[in-house]
């Protein structure tokens, strides 16, 4: 067992974990962040995507011990002061989810994408989401939602200036 301290959604968590434990299992089973889900065992689906120090990672592809001393943000830590993150709002407004299983990972990846590229083209959005599978939506509305969120996130930044 190894002792780790991870800041998860703004709360410092210190736990004993098996060295082989994956970050996604640490989040779900130890911290109770069941908003982050597992969709595959080959790092293909992206359902488990979270932010590690602000950048997206597939949490099934990271060991819990590798997150020791780092910040993890999950879908549950994305909204602030009871307000949805613009990406969450855009997914709702554009009907970018059906069953919702891919949604937490998709939103976390989309936030990362727009942070890196505030004004993405449709092509750039599609390529940026390539590692996140959705079986329900056919991606059409997800692409629309990400474009809409990019717009509202950049106007927010302008207003903040």
């Amino acid at each position, binding site marked *: 067992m190894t002792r780790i301290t991870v800041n998860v959604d703004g709360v410092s968590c210190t736990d004993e974990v098996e060295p082989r434990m994956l970050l996604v299992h640490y989040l779900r089973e130890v911290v109770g962040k069941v908003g982050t889900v597992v969709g595959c065992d*080959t790092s293909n689906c992206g359902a488990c995507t979270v932010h590690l120090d602000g950048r997206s990672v597939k949490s099934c592809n990271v060991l819990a011990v590798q997150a020791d001393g780092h910040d993890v943000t999950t879908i549950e830590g994305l909204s602030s002061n009871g307000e949805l993150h613009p990406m969450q709002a855009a997914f709702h407004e554009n*009907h970018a989810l059906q069953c919702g299983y891919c949604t937490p990972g998709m939103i976390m990846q989309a936030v990362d994408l727009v942070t890196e590229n505030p004004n993405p083209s449709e092509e750039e959005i599609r390529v940026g989401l390539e590692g996140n599978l959705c079986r329900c939506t056919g991606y059409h509305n997800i692409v629309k939602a990400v474009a809409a969120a990019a717009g509202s996130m950049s106007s927010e930044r302008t207003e903040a200036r």
Partner: protein
Amino acid sequence: MTAVDDRPTTEIGSARLRKEDQRLITGRTKWTDNIQLPGMVHLAMVRSPFAHARVSGIDTAEAKALPGVIAVLTGSDIADIQGLNITAWPITTDQKAPDHLPMVVDHVACAGEIVAVVAARSAAVARDAAELVDVDYEELPAVLDLKEAATDAVLAHPSLGTNKSAFWQLDSKAGGTGGDIEEAIATAREGGILIEREYRQQRLIPSFMEPRSTVVDPTGDQVVLWSSTQVPHLVRFGIAATTGLPESKIRVIAPDVGGGFGGKLQTTPEEFVTLAVARTLGKPCKYTETRSESMVSAHHGRDQWQKLTLAAEKDGTVTGLKVELMCDLGAYAGLVGGGVPVLGAWMFNSIYKFGAYQFNCTNYYTNKTWVDAYRGAGRPEATYAIERLMDELAAEVGVDPMEIRRKNWITHDEFPFASVAGMTYDSGDYEAATEKALGLFGYDELRAEQQRRRESGDPVQLGIGISTFTEMCGLAPSRVLGSLNYGAGGWESASIRMLTTGTVEVITGASAHGQGHETAWSQIVADRLGVPFENVEVLHGDTQIAPKGMDTYGSRSLVVGGEALVRAADKVIEKAKPLAAHMLEAGVDDLEFAAGRFTVKGTDKGIGLTDIALGIWTGHDYPEGLEPSIDADATFDPVNFSFPHGTHLCAMEVDTETGATTMRKYVCVDDIGTIINPLIVEGQVHGGLVQGIGQALWEGAEYDEQGTLVSGSFVDYTLPTAADTISFVTDHTTSPSTSNSLGTKGVGEAGTIASTPAVVNAIVDAVRHLGIDDIQMPCTPERVWKAIQSAGGTTDAAPVADAQAHFDEGAPNQDPAAGTTDGAGQ
């Protein structure tokens, strides 16, 4: 407490944002795998790596010795209580079906079957211990190929004595719905056109994103089973019918379910094994599959060889169609199982007027994963076949493929139309949908571009694919199901509870898993009862809350379940009316009901429905002989199916040097009757399209010669990604269905059914001038390239009528211009 009036004039038709989104976008969703119960035990399955084997011994000692392991159980340990995975639809009374035991006792019929289960303190320990279970297998010869299965040279289940499960036929002459197919074929062979083709419907994996999970708590008054299933009511029935647990002792809950597409329309071995272990140990148990387990053990879809003979006159008027299907059921007949291909029986004739028709379907067992419903179930296979054939006929006659469809389809003034397969199509307008689609697509411009590219010898050729489809939805009139030997009904139920403080609970027997029922059902009830959308709560997916239901599949929820809801709402109004009359001191006949209020005609006196609900709850003052309640239940059994249709147009670019294909444009105009929520409808269409496109271009379950599923993970089973797909143009025409009062037709499967042939037609159209008239799905670059190579670049190899090969009895595809038919071991 009366209704507020800031709602849209009608909820039906408005693009309400979904109620269910909030928890899904914030990570507070209730997936089965999220459930943690005190003292819960975790399970891992030991699965057979062999396709066909006898289990000669299982040594569990080492596994049991691992710290944290609670028990290791084998098939014989739970034999008395494990029950059976049932088949609800023996398509004939003499259908052969091996018993499908959740856990193998001695005979393994496909790789992935469960041979032992480990219960441990954690999932990780359970998995470690599962590796330590030592199973002795005596390997048996396996039959993997469908056509080999038909020869009975090797048997999937030696005890059955044959691989053949059943044969089912529909014949228009025998049924009195049309002429003699053999006559039509003979006439066409003499002086008309005969198109003979063999198409392959490859095996697909439904690939819902949430792996299946089951939690069982056996410790309460009722045994509670949570499962990521589409069919909680059918699971409860299956348990009661086969495990010895009384139905009244079983509660099944489908919490939030992460997609299904037919793949969770099943009673699964995993559910039954988890239940048996929980009962044996007397402790709550959880089992969640890995993706790799899901790929090999959850049922697959499609998997047919289709032998087709289309007879026509020289001008392209179709006179008959003969369909001969060979269908691979895999190792067992599933819940719908052998009935899935039979659902295509009424759809091969599609929107066309054929004089004669015959559908033949033979189902076989092989030592591969079982096959059952996958989005569209039987109807995509039928639509693919006929829409490919119509293109072939057009090429033969030498006219535009849309022309050949116009010549043969049912015109708008011919409805209701009695089809050659014996269905009555109640409404539709194929001309209108097609006109709209052609305009949105820019059909003529794209045809002109295609011509330019042909003439200039552009290495990138353009193809246009058409699919004018229909499907039958709203499964199903119970009497029809009875006549087909199906084991259950097709009704749906709904209840409405008018709560005292002005809100409304709606209970539905349909069980959503991403479709947005909570939103759409709220819209229907809000309109009908005149209550605010926000004040309606929709409850479902728990046999204790919604005791009666037939669940969600076959585009049935809205068409059948929505109508049950309408009827329950109307009963609420009927029950409230005499109470309103009493409270308003007026005669019943003097009352009108609108926008949630009863008013006395010609006066301003009135009372709201929700006020009546409060009044009747106190029960202080109501007429003698009435019951103090306005709550109501309804069960609706449809009298007919509904028949959505649409025109789908696809433009594909094909690089003739590399075989690479690129989708350029996709337009669809669907007629799904009345639309309750356009936002939800668009979403269903988009998702459906990509699943159908996935079959055309990328997806396929492949086995090696040992019977190992080689496309057993998301690395090898290539699902469409955002980068592979494009944005679609979707639109609608509306001719309301007459089979339900809302006029809805169902939309869940439309996109999947229509898109596959549209894409393949487009690819074939792009290279037809090279002498190619078929490419087997999935049309990967490799297959397209091979087809181009083997066509030898001849520019004028289009087959002529008298040079067409004809089927010899039992011979494989003789179409000389067909593309590659590799895919051994499928």
